[in-house]
Protein backbone atom coordinates (compact mmCIF):
# COMPACT_ATOMS: atom_id res chain seq x y z
CA UNK A 1 0.00 0.00 0.00
CA UNK A 2 1.10 3.51 -0.69
CA UNK A 3 1.94 5.02 2.66
CA UNK A 4 1.20 8.69 3.05
CA UNK A 5 3.53 9.32 5.93
CA UNK A 6 6.71 7.23 5.95
CA UNK A 7 7.47 8.16 9.59
CA UNK A 8 4.46 6.29 10.88
CA UNK A 9 4.46 2.54 11.45
CA UNK A 10 3.09 0.18 8.86
CA UNK A 11 -0.67 -0.37 8.63
CA UNK A 12 -1.33 2.92 10.35
CA UNK A 13 -3.94 3.99 7.85
CA UNK A 14 -7.21 2.27 7.17
CA UNK A 15 -6.67 -0.31 4.52
CA UNK A 16 -9.07 -2.19 2.31
CA UNK A 17 -8.17 -5.72 1.32
CA UNK A 18 -8.85 -7.37 -2.01
CA UNK A 19 -11.74 -9.44 -0.70
CA UNK A 20 -13.57 -6.45 0.75
CA UNK A 21 -12.46 -6.88 4.34
CA UNK A 22 -11.09 -3.90 6.21
CA UNK A 23 -7.90 -3.65 8.22
CA UNK A 24 -8.74 -1.55 11.21
CA UNK A 25 -6.59 -0.11 13.94
CA UNK A 26 -7.74 -0.19 17.53
CA UNK A 27 -5.41 1.80 19.70
CA UNK A 28 -2.78 2.64 20.84
CA UNK A 29 -4.77 5.54 22.26
CA UNK A 30 -8.33 4.36 22.39
CA UNK A 31 -11.07 4.90 25.00
CA UNK A 32 -11.50 1.21 25.64
CA UNK A 33 -7.78 0.57 25.80
CA UNK A 34 -7.01 1.47 29.35
CA UNK A 35 -3.33 1.07 29.00
CA UNK A 36 -1.78 1.31 25.61
CA UNK A 37 -1.92 -1.56 23.22
CA UNK A 38 -2.59 -1.58 19.53
CA UNK A 39 -4.84 -4.21 18.03
CA UNK A 40 -4.84 -4.64 14.30
CA UNK A 41 -8.17 -6.05 13.24
CA UNK A 42 -9.26 -7.48 9.96
CA UNK A 43 -12.99 -7.10 9.94
CA UNK A 44 -15.70 -8.43 7.70
CA UNK A 45 -18.59 -6.13 8.53
CA UNK A 46 -18.83 -6.32 12.31
CA UNK A 47 -17.07 -9.68 12.55
CA UNK A 48 -13.42 -9.89 13.50
CA UNK A 49 -11.81 -12.37 11.14
CA UNK A 50 -8.20 -11.78 12.08
CA UNK A 51 -6.41 -9.93 14.83
CA UNK A 52 -2.92 -9.09 15.94
CA UNK A 53 -1.86 -7.26 19.07
CA UNK A 54 1.13 -4.97 19.18
CA UNK A 55 2.61 -3.99 22.51
CA UNK A 56 5.66 -2.14 23.74
CA UNK A 57 4.18 1.31 24.12
CA UNK A 58 4.99 1.30 27.81
CA UNK A 59 8.33 -0.48 27.69
CA UNK A 60 10.36 1.38 30.31
CA UNK A 61 13.47 -0.77 30.53
CA UNK A 62 12.67 -2.17 33.97
CA UNK A 63 14.94 -5.18 33.69
CA UNK A 64 17.91 -3.27 32.32
CA UNK A 65 17.52 -0.50 34.90
CA UNK A 66 17.41 -2.99 37.77
CA UNK A 67 20.71 -4.50 36.65
CA UNK A 68 22.26 -1.12 37.43
CA UNK A 69 20.91 -0.48 40.94
CA UNK A 70 21.25 -2.29 44.27
CA UNK A 71 18.78 -4.99 45.27
CA UNK A 72 16.80 -2.74 47.60
CA UNK A 73 16.67 0.04 45.04
CA UNK A 74 14.76 -2.34 42.77
CA UNK A 75 11.79 -2.27 45.16
CA UNK A 76 10.31 1.05 43.95
CA UNK A 77 10.62 -0.20 40.36
CA UNK A 78 8.62 -3.29 41.26
CA UNK A 79 5.77 -1.05 42.49
CA UNK A 80 5.31 0.24 39.02
CA UNK A 81 5.09 -3.16 37.34
CA UNK A 82 1.54 -4.02 38.20
CA UNK A 83 0.56 -0.65 39.58
CA UNK A 84 -2.91 -1.89 40.40
CA UNK A 85 -1.56 -4.36 42.94
CA UNK A 86 1.83 -2.97 43.97
CA UNK A 87 2.18 -4.81 47.29
CA UNK A 88 2.13 -8.19 45.57
CA UNK A 89 5.10 -7.22 43.43
CA UNK A 90 6.95 -5.86 46.44
CA UNK A 91 6.34 -9.07 48.33
CA UNK A 92 7.25 -11.27 45.38
CA UNK A 93 10.53 -9.48 44.84
CA UNK A 94 11.45 -9.48 48.54
CA UNK A 95 10.65 -13.19 48.80
CA UNK A 96 12.75 -13.95 45.75
CA UNK A 97 15.81 -12.15 47.13
CA UNK A 98 15.30 -13.75 50.53
CA UNK A 99 15.13 -17.16 48.87
CA UNK A 100 18.37 -16.36 47.08
CA UNK A 101 19.98 -15.41 50.39
CA UNK A 102 18.44 -18.33 52.26
CA UNK A 103 16.89 -16.22 55.02
CA UNK A 104 13.42 -16.05 56.46
CA UNK A 105 11.64 -13.05 57.91
CA UNK A 106 9.93 -12.99 61.34
CA UNK A 107 6.35 -14.23 61.64
CA UNK A 108 4.84 -10.77 62.08
CA UNK A 109 6.44 -9.60 58.86
CA UNK A 110 5.01 -12.59 57.00
CA UNK A 111 1.51 -11.90 58.28
CA UNK A 112 1.73 -8.23 57.33
CA UNK A 113 2.92 -9.21 53.87
CA UNK A 114 -0.08 -11.49 53.50
CA UNK A 115 -2.45 -8.74 54.62
CA UNK A 116 -0.94 -6.24 52.22
CA UNK A 117 -0.94 -8.72 49.32
CA UNK A 118 -4.60 -9.42 49.82
CA UNK A 119 -5.43 -5.71 50.01
CA UNK A 120 -3.67 -5.37 46.69
CA UNK A 121 -5.54 -8.28 45.20
CA UNK A 122 -8.82 -6.64 46.14
CA UNK A 123 -7.80 -3.28 44.64
CA UNK A 124 -6.71 -5.10 41.48
CA UNK A 125 -10.03 -6.87 41.06
CA UNK A 126 -12.03 -3.75 41.99
CA UNK A 127 -10.23 -1.71 39.36
CA UNK A 128 -10.63 -4.41 36.74
CA UNK A 129 -14.33 -4.89 37.36
CA UNK A 130 -15.01 -1.17 37.74
CA UNK A 131 -13.26 -0.26 34.51
CA UNK A 132 -14.84 -3.18 32.69
CA UNK A 133 -18.30 -2.16 33.85
CA UNK A 134 -17.66 1.45 32.88
CA UNK A 135 -16.60 0.45 29.39
CA UNK A 136 -19.80 -1.56 29.09
CA UNK A 137 -21.61 1.66 30.10
CA UNK A 138 -22.46 0.79 33.71
CA UNK A 139 -20.96 3.97 35.04
CA UNK A 140 -22.51 3.85 38.52
CA UNK A 141 -20.73 0.59 39.27
CA UNK A 142 -17.44 2.27 38.52
CA UNK A 143 -18.12 4.83 41.23
CA UNK A 144 -19.12 2.17 43.74
CA UNK A 145 -16.04 0.07 43.15
CA UNK A 146 -13.64 2.99 43.03
CA UNK A 147 -15.08 4.19 46.34
CA UNK A 148 -14.28 0.81 47.81
CA UNK A 149 -10.80 1.01 46.32
CA UNK A 150 -10.36 4.45 47.85
CA UNK A 151 -10.97 2.98 51.31
CA UNK A 152 -8.23 0.43 50.68
CA UNK A 153 -5.85 3.02 49.26
CA UNK A 154 -6.23 4.99 52.48
CA UNK A 155 -5.58 1.86 54.48
CA UNK A 156 -2.43 1.09 52.51
CA UNK A 157 -1.42 4.73 52.72
CA UNK A 158 -1.67 4.66 56.53
CA UNK A 159 0.67 1.66 56.69
CA UNK A 160 3.12 2.26 53.86
CA UNK A 161 2.93 5.97 53.19
CA UNK A 162 1.89 5.73 49.58
CA UNK A 163 -1.43 5.22 47.85
CA UNK A 164 -0.44 3.65 44.57
CA UNK A 165 3.30 3.13 44.89
CA UNK A 166 4.07 2.13 48.48
CA UNK A 167 7.50 0.39 48.17
CA UNK A 168 6.63 -1.28 51.44
CA UNK A 169 8.96 -4.25 51.59
CA UNK A 170 12.70 -4.43 51.95
CA UNK A 171 14.91 -7.45 51.60
CA UNK A 172 14.50 -9.08 55.01
CA UNK A 173 11.58 -7.05 56.26
CA UNK A 174 9.41 -4.02 55.84
CA UNK A 175 9.94 -0.28 55.86
CA UNK A 176 7.83 0.08 59.00
CA UNK A 177 5.39 -1.73 61.23
CA UNK A 178 1.64 -1.30 60.96
CA UNK A 179 0.18 1.85 62.53
CA UNK A 180 -1.58 1.40 65.91
CA UNK A 181 -5.17 1.73 64.68
CA UNK A 182 -4.70 -0.53 61.70
CA UNK A 183 -7.05 -3.30 62.84
CA UNK A 184 -9.94 -0.92 63.35
CA UNK A 185 -9.30 0.89 60.05
CA UNK A 186 -9.02 -2.41 58.20
CA UNK A 187 -12.36 -3.58 59.57
CA UNK A 188 -13.97 -0.34 58.39
CA UNK A 189 -12.36 -0.53 54.96
CA UNK A 190 -13.40 -4.15 54.50
CA UNK A 191 -16.96 -3.27 55.49
CA UNK A 192 -16.92 -0.58 52.82
CA UNK A 193 -15.57 -3.06 50.27
CA UNK A 194 -18.26 -5.62 51.11
CA UNK A 195 -21.02 -3.02 50.93
CA UNK A 196 -19.89 -1.59 47.62
CA UNK A 197 -19.22 -4.98 46.06
CA UNK A 198 -22.67 -6.16 47.12
CA UNK A 199 -24.20 -3.07 45.52
CA UNK A 200 -22.20 -3.57 42.35
CA UNK A 201 -23.13 -7.22 42.20
CA UNK A 202 -26.81 -6.36 42.46
CA UNK A 203 -26.43 -4.08 39.47
CA UNK A 204 -24.32 -6.38 37.33
CA UNK A 205 -24.62 -10.10 37.91
CA UNK A 206 -28.21 -10.50 36.76
CA UNK A 207 -28.25 -7.42 34.59
CA UNK A 208 -29.49 -8.45 31.17
CA UNK A 209 -27.21 -6.15 29.17
CA UNK A 210 -24.09 -7.00 31.15
CA UNK A 211 -24.92 -10.68 31.05
CA UNK A 212 -25.50 -10.68 27.31
CA UNK A 213 -22.26 -8.92 26.61
CA UNK A 214 -20.10 -11.16 28.80
CA UNK A 215 -21.68 -14.59 28.51
CA UNK A 216 -20.05 -16.62 25.77
CA UNK A 217 -17.68 -13.90 24.60
CA UNK A 218 -13.93 -14.32 24.75
CA UNK A 219 -14.25 -18.00 25.58
CA UNK A 220 -11.30 -20.38 25.67
CA UNK A 221 -11.03 -24.06 26.51
CA UNK A 222 -9.01 -25.54 29.35
CA UNK A 223 -6.41 -27.11 27.06
CA UNK A 224 -5.95 -23.99 24.99
CA UNK A 225 -5.61 -21.84 28.10
CA UNK A 226 -2.89 -24.12 29.46
CA UNK A 227 -1.12 -24.16 26.11
CA UNK A 228 -1.17 -20.38 25.98
CA UNK A 229 0.42 -20.24 29.48
CA UNK A 230 -2.60 -18.58 31.08
CA UNK A 231 -2.62 -18.35 34.85
CA UNK A 232 -4.77 -16.61 37.43
CA UNK A 233 -8.48 -15.83 37.04
CA UNK A 234 -8.34 -16.38 33.28
CA UNK A 235 -7.15 -19.96 33.77
CA UNK A 236 -9.36 -20.61 36.77
CA UNK A 237 -12.41 -19.51 34.80
CA UNK A 238 -11.83 -22.49 32.51
CA UNK A 239 -11.95 -24.87 35.47
CA UNK A 240 -8.29 -25.39 36.38
CA UNK A 241 -7.99 -24.75 40.12
CA UNK A 242 -4.40 -23.48 39.94
CA UNK A 243 -3.53 -20.88 42.51
CA UNK A 244 0.03 -20.46 43.75
CA UNK A 245 -1.26 -19.68 47.23
CA UNK A 246 -2.67 -23.21 47.47
CA UNK A 247 -0.40 -25.11 45.08
CA UNK A 248 2.96 -24.05 46.52
CA UNK A 249 2.13 -21.97 49.58
CA UNK A 250 4.51 -19.15 50.38
CA UNK A 251 4.53 -16.90 53.44
CA UNK A 252 1.85 -18.18 55.83
CA UNK A 253 -0.94 -18.85 53.34
CA UNK A 254 -1.22 -22.45 54.52
CA UNK A 255 -2.60 -21.21 57.85
CA UNK A 256 -5.74 -19.62 56.44
CA UNK A 257 -9.04 -21.03 55.40
CA UNK A 258 -10.04 -19.77 51.96
CA UNK A 259 -11.47 -21.13 48.74
CA UNK A 260 -10.30 -20.94 45.15
CA UNK A 261 -13.27 -20.09 42.94
CA UNK A 262 -13.26 -21.76 39.53
CA UNK A 263 -15.47 -21.29 36.50
CA UNK A 264 -16.52 -23.79 33.89
CA UNK A 265 -16.96 -21.98 30.56
CA UNK A 266 -13.80 -19.90 30.37
CA UNK A 267 -15.69 -16.88 29.06
CA UNK A 268 -15.81 -13.30 30.23
CA UNK A 269 -18.75 -13.87 32.53
CA UNK A 270 -16.94 -16.63 34.39
CA UNK A 271 -13.89 -14.42 34.73
CA UNK A 272 -16.10 -11.74 36.20
CA UNK A 273 -17.64 -14.18 38.70
CA UNK A 274 -14.24 -15.59 39.67
CA UNK A 275 -12.89 -12.11 40.35
CA UNK A 276 -15.96 -11.14 42.36
CA UNK A 277 -15.61 -14.20 44.55
CA UNK A 278 -11.88 -13.69 44.97
CA UNK A 279 -12.56 -10.28 46.46
CA UNK A 280 -14.63 -11.95 49.17
CA UNK A 281 -12.06 -14.66 49.78
CA UNK A 282 -9.30 -12.08 50.10
CA UNK A 283 -11.36 -10.18 52.64
CA UNK A 284 -11.69 -13.43 54.58
CA UNK A 285 -7.92 -13.96 54.52
CA UNK A 286 -7.28 -10.42 55.75
CA UNK A 287 -9.67 -10.91 58.67
CA UNK A 288 -8.06 -14.21 59.66
CA UNK A 289 -4.57 -12.76 59.34
CA UNK A 290 -5.46 -9.77 61.48
CA UNK A 291 -6.92 -12.05 64.14
CA UNK A 292 -3.81 -14.25 64.18
CA UNK A 293 -1.30 -11.38 63.81
CA UNK A 294 1.57 -12.14 66.24
CA UNK A 295 3.62 -9.53 68.09
CA UNK A 296 7.33 -9.15 67.66
CA UNK A 297 9.84 -7.60 65.31
CA UNK A 298 9.09 -7.15 61.62
CA UNK A 299 12.67 -7.20 60.39
CA UNK A 300 15.37 -9.80 60.07
CA UNK A 301 17.84 -9.38 62.96
CA UNK A 302 21.08 -9.38 60.90
CA UNK A 303 22.51 -5.95 60.09
CA UNK A 304 24.01 -7.09 56.82
CA UNK A 305 20.46 -7.59 55.58
CA UNK A 306 18.41 -4.81 57.06
CA UNK A 307 19.34 -1.29 58.14
CA UNK A 308 20.09 -1.01 61.87
CA UNK A 309 17.76 1.18 63.99
CA UNK A 310 18.70 4.85 64.06
CA UNK A 311 19.93 5.02 67.72
CA UNK A 312 22.54 2.37 66.88
CA UNK A 313 23.63 4.24 63.76
CA UNK A 314 24.15 7.44 65.73
CA UNK A 315 25.70 5.93 68.85
CA UNK A 316 27.85 2.98 67.80
CA UNK A 317 30.53 2.52 65.18
CA UNK A 318 29.25 -0.95 64.25
CA UNK A 319 25.81 0.41 63.58
CA UNK A 320 27.21 3.26 61.52
CA UNK A 321 29.38 0.96 59.45
CA UNK A 322 26.54 -1.48 58.84
CA UNK A 323 24.34 1.41 57.73
CA UNK A 324 27.04 2.78 55.45
CA UNK A 325 27.86 -0.54 53.84
CA UNK A 326 24.25 -1.47 53.33
CA UNK A 327 23.37 1.89 51.82
CA UNK A 328 26.27 2.05 49.42
CA UNK A 329 26.90 -1.57 48.53
CA UNK A 330 23.53 -3.09 49.31
CA UNK A 331 22.73 -6.60 50.43
CA UNK A 332 24.93 -9.23 48.85
CA UNK A 333 23.18 -12.49 48.06
CA UNK A 334 25.44 -15.40 47.13
CA UNK A 335 25.97 -16.22 43.46
CA UNK A 336 23.16 -18.34 42.09
CA UNK A 337 19.73 -18.22 40.58
CA UNK A 338 16.22 -18.59 41.95
CA UNK A 339 12.67 -18.39 40.73
CA UNK A 340 10.01 -17.33 43.18
CA UNK A 341 6.35 -17.24 42.27
CA UNK A 342 3.53 -15.47 44.04
CA UNK A 343 -0.10 -15.23 43.07
CA UNK A 344 -0.82 -11.81 41.64
CA UNK A 345 -4.11 -10.29 40.63
CA UNK A 346 -3.79 -11.62 37.08
CA UNK A 347 -1.95 -14.83 37.75
CA UNK A 348 1.48 -16.06 38.63
CA UNK A 349 3.98 -13.27 39.22
CA UNK A 350 7.40 -14.86 39.08
CA UNK A 351 10.77 -13.31 39.73
CA UNK A 352 13.77 -15.03 38.20
CA UNK A 353 16.92 -13.61 39.73
CA UNK A 354 20.53 -14.26 38.88
CA UNK A 355 23.16 -12.99 41.27
CA UNK A 356 26.90 -12.93 40.74
CA UNK A 357 27.54 -12.28 44.43
CA UNK A 358 27.81 -8.51 44.09
CA UNK A 359 25.41 -5.89 45.39
CA UNK A 360 23.50 -5.65 42.14
CA UNK A 361 21.36 -8.13 40.22
CA UNK A 362 23.10 -9.71 37.26
CA UNK A 363 19.76 -10.53 35.69
CA UNK A 364 16.31 -9.74 36.96
CA UNK A 365 13.39 -11.18 35.09
CA UNK A 366 9.74 -10.75 35.88
CA UNK A 367 7.34 -13.36 34.64
CA UNK A 368 4.43 -11.04 33.86
CA UNK A 369 1.04 -12.76 34.24
CA UNK A 370 -0.78 -10.64 31.69
CA UNK A 371 1.87 -11.18 29.02
CA UNK A 372 0.48 -14.57 27.95
CA UNK A 373 -3.05 -13.24 28.40
CA UNK A 374 -2.41 -10.43 25.94
CA UNK A 375 -0.65 -12.88 23.63
CA UNK A 376 -3.84 -14.91 23.70
CA UNK A 377 -6.06 -11.90 23.11
CA UNK A 378 -6.19 -12.32 19.29
CA UNK A 379 -7.34 -15.89 19.83
CA UNK A 380 -10.05 -14.73 22.23
CA UNK A 381 -11.50 -12.02 20.02
CA UNK A 382 -11.28 -13.81 16.67
CA UNK A 383 -14.71 -14.72 15.35
CA UNK A 384 -16.53 -12.34 17.64
CA UNK A 385 -17.93 -8.88 17.09
CA UNK A 386 -15.94 -5.68 17.37
CA UNK A 387 -17.98 -4.69 20.42
CA UNK A 388 -16.94 -7.88 22.23
CA UNK A 389 -13.32 -6.77 22.14
CA UNK A 390 -14.11 -4.18 24.79
CA UNK A 391 -15.58 -6.77 27.12
CA UNK A 392 -12.77 -9.25 26.54
CA UNK A 393 -10.00 -6.71 26.82
CA UNK A 394 -11.46 -5.44 30.10
CA UNK A 395 -11.58 -8.93 31.58
CA UNK A 396 -8.04 -9.72 30.44
CA UNK A 397 -7.06 -6.84 32.72
CA UNK A 398 -3.98 -5.89 30.77
CA UNK A 399 -1.65 -3.80 32.90
CA UNK A 400 0.91 -2.02 30.76
CA UNK A 401 3.55 -1.67 33.44
CA UNK A 402 3.84 -5.39 33.94
CA UNK A 403 3.12 -6.44 30.38
CA UNK A 404 5.88 -4.39 28.82
CA UNK A 405 7.99 -3.55 31.86
Amino acid at each position, binding site marked *: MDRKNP*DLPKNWELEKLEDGRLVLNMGPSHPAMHGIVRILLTVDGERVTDADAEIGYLHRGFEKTCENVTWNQCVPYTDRLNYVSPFINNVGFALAVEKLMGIETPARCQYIRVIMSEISRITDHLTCLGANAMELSAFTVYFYLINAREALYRLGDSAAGGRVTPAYTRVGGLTRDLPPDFKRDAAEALASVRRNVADAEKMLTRNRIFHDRLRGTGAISKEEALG*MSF*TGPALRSTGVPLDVRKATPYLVYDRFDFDIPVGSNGDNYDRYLVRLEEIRQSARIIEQALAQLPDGPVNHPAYDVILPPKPEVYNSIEGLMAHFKLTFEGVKPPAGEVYQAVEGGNGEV*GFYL*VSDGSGRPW*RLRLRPPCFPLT*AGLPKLIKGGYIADIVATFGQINMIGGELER
Partner: protein
Amino acid sequence: MTSYLLETLKTRFPAAVLETHAFRGDETAVVKKEAWKEVAAYLKDELGFDLLLDLTAADYLPREPRFELVCHFYSTKHNYRLRLKCPVPAGDASADTLTGLWPGADWFEREAWDMFGITFAGHPDLRRLLMYDGFEGHPLRKDYPLKKRQPRLPHRD
Protein backbone atom coordinates in the same frame (compact mmCIF):
# COMPACT_ATOMS: atom_id res chain seq x y z
CA MET B 1 21.47 -33.63 45.85
CA THR B 2 19.48 -36.28 44.06
CA SER B 3 16.02 -35.88 42.75
CA TYR B 4 13.87 -38.43 40.99
CA LEU B 5 13.01 -35.97 38.22
CA LEU B 6 16.58 -34.94 37.48
CA GLU B 7 17.77 -38.55 37.65
CA THR B 8 15.08 -39.52 35.14
CA LEU B 9 16.22 -36.82 32.79
CA LYS B 10 19.85 -37.85 33.13
CA THR B 11 19.06 -41.50 32.42
CA ARG B 12 16.85 -40.68 29.48
CA PHE B 13 19.24 -38.15 27.89
CA PRO B 14 22.72 -39.14 29.09
CA ALA B 15 24.46 -37.24 26.32
CA ALA B 16 22.30 -34.12 26.30
CA VAL B 17 22.11 -33.23 30.00
CA LEU B 18 25.19 -31.20 30.81
CA GLU B 19 24.52 -30.46 34.43
CA THR B 20 21.80 -30.61 37.07
CA HIS B 21 21.45 -28.79 40.35
CA ALA B 22 18.82 -27.79 42.86
CA PHE B 23 20.03 -24.52 44.35
CA ARG B 24 17.54 -23.37 47.04
CA GLY B 25 15.19 -26.13 45.99
CA ASP B 26 14.76 -25.05 42.37
CA GLU B 27 15.43 -28.15 40.34
CA THR B 28 17.38 -27.27 37.25
CA ALA B 29 18.61 -29.19 34.26
CA VAL B 30 21.07 -27.73 31.76
CA VAL B 31 20.87 -29.37 28.37
CA LYS B 32 22.69 -29.06 25.09
CA LYS B 33 21.22 -26.68 22.58
CA GLU B 34 20.69 -29.42 20.04
CA ALA B 35 18.49 -31.37 22.43
CA TRP B 36 16.51 -28.34 23.63
CA LYS B 37 13.32 -29.14 21.81
CA GLU B 38 13.58 -32.88 22.26
CA VAL B 39 13.92 -32.60 26.04
CA ALA B 40 11.07 -30.08 26.19
CA ALA B 41 8.82 -32.42 24.22
CA TYR B 42 9.73 -35.27 26.57
CA LEU B 43 8.87 -33.07 29.55
CA LYS B 44 5.52 -32.21 28.08
CA ASP B 45 4.45 -35.57 26.73
CA GLU B 46 5.96 -38.03 29.18
CA LEU B 47 6.40 -36.13 32.42
CA GLY B 48 3.25 -34.02 32.34
CA PHE B 49 4.71 -30.51 32.40
CA ASP B 50 1.75 -28.95 30.65
CA LEU B 51 2.30 -25.30 31.56
CA LEU B 52 5.18 -23.29 30.16
CA LEU B 53 5.40 -20.54 32.74
CA ASP B 54 8.22 -18.51 31.39
CA LEU B 55 10.84 -18.46 28.69
CA THR B 56 13.61 -15.93 28.82
CA ALA B 57 17.32 -15.54 28.32
CA ALA B 58 20.30 -14.19 30.20
CA ASP B 59 23.53 -12.66 28.99
CA TYR B 60 26.78 -13.63 30.74
CA LEU B 61 28.98 -11.44 28.61
CA PRO B 62 32.63 -12.34 29.12
CA ARG B 63 31.75 -16.01 29.44
CA GLU B 64 31.48 -18.34 26.49
CA PRO B 65 28.87 -19.65 25.68
CA ARG B 66 27.56 -16.18 26.21
CA PHE B 67 23.78 -16.59 26.41
CA GLU B 68 21.56 -18.95 28.28
CA LEU B 69 17.94 -19.75 27.51
CA VAL B 70 15.89 -20.28 30.64
CA CYS B 71 12.53 -22.00 30.77
CA HIS B 72 10.27 -22.56 33.75
CA PHE B 73 7.78 -25.38 33.58
CA TYR B 74 4.96 -26.34 35.84
CA SER B 75 2.94 -29.51 35.93
CA THR B 76 -0.67 -29.00 37.00
CA LYS B 77 -1.05 -32.75 37.36
CA HIS B 78 1.86 -33.30 39.73
CA ASN B 79 2.14 -29.77 41.17
CA TYR B 80 5.82 -29.69 40.33
CA ARG B 81 8.21 -27.12 38.94
CA LEU B 82 11.30 -27.48 36.80
CA ARG B 83 13.78 -25.10 35.27
CA LEU B 84 15.36 -26.05 31.98
CA LYS B 85 18.34 -24.15 30.62
CA CYS B 86 20.52 -24.36 27.59
CA PRO B 87 23.70 -22.46 26.78
CA VAL B 88 23.67 -20.53 23.51
CA PRO B 89 26.99 -19.36 22.04
CA ALA B 90 27.28 -15.79 20.76
CA GLY B 91 28.51 -16.96 17.35
CA ASP B 92 25.42 -19.04 16.71
CA ALA B 93 22.71 -17.33 18.78
CA SER B 94 19.80 -19.51 17.80
CA ALA B 95 17.73 -22.35 19.17
CA ASP B 96 14.75 -24.45 18.18
CA THR B 97 11.36 -22.94 18.78
CA LEU B 98 8.96 -24.38 21.34
CA THR B 99 5.87 -22.88 19.72
CA GLY B 100 4.90 -26.26 18.30
CA LEU B 101 4.67 -27.69 21.80
CA TRP B 102 3.24 -24.70 23.65
CA PRO B 103 1.62 -22.00 21.48
CA GLY B 104 2.20 -19.63 24.40
CA ALA B 105 5.94 -19.69 23.69
CA ASP B 106 5.30 -17.41 20.70
CA TRP B 107 5.53 -14.05 22.44
CA PHE B 108 8.13 -15.19 24.95
CA GLU B 109 10.44 -16.11 22.07
CA ARG B 110 9.70 -12.87 20.27
CA GLU B 111 10.68 -11.01 23.41
CA ALA B 112 13.88 -13.03 23.74
CA TRP B 113 14.73 -12.16 20.13
CA ASP B 114 13.92 -8.51 20.70
CA MET B 115 15.85 -8.15 23.93
CA PHE B 116 18.78 -10.52 23.36
CA GLY B 117 18.93 -11.19 19.64
CA ILE B 118 18.50 -14.94 19.94
CA THR B 119 16.72 -16.36 16.91
CA PHE B 120 14.38 -19.31 17.08
CA ALA B 121 14.43 -21.71 14.16
CA GLY B 122 10.92 -22.56 13.03
CA HIS B 123 9.20 -19.68 14.80
CA PRO B 124 6.16 -18.61 12.72
CA ASP B 125 6.53 -14.86 13.10
CA LEU B 126 9.76 -13.68 14.66
CA ARG B 127 9.41 -9.90 14.88
CA ARG B 128 10.34 -7.33 17.45
CA LEU B 129 7.82 -7.23 20.27
CA LEU B 130 8.64 -4.42 22.67
CA MET B 131 10.94 -2.21 20.63
CA TYR B 132 10.02 -0.69 17.30
CA ASP B 133 11.02 -1.17 13.69
CA GLY B 134 14.26 0.65 13.09
CA PHE B 135 15.64 0.07 16.56
CA GLU B 136 19.18 -1.21 16.26
CA GLY B 137 20.69 -3.64 18.72
CA HIS B 138 19.20 -5.64 21.54
CA PRO B 139 18.81 -3.63 24.72
CA LEU B 140 19.16 -6.33 27.36
CA ARG B 141 22.54 -7.42 26.07
CA LYS B 142 25.24 -6.44 28.50
CA ASP B 143 27.13 -4.50 25.83
CA TYR B 144 24.14 -2.28 24.99
CA PRO B 145 24.61 1.00 26.88
CA LEU B 146 21.85 1.75 29.41
CA LYS B 147 21.14 5.23 28.08
CA LYS B 148 21.63 4.80 24.36
CA ARG B 149 18.41 6.18 22.91
CA GLN B 150 17.18 5.84 19.36
CA PRO B 151 14.35 8.36 19.05
CA ARG B 152 11.73 8.02 16.37
CA LEU B 153 10.94 11.72 16.51
CA PRO B 154 13.38 14.59 16.73
CA HIS B 155 13.19 15.98 20.27
CA ARG B 156 12.50 19.66 20.88
CA ASP B 157 15.22 21.90 22.39
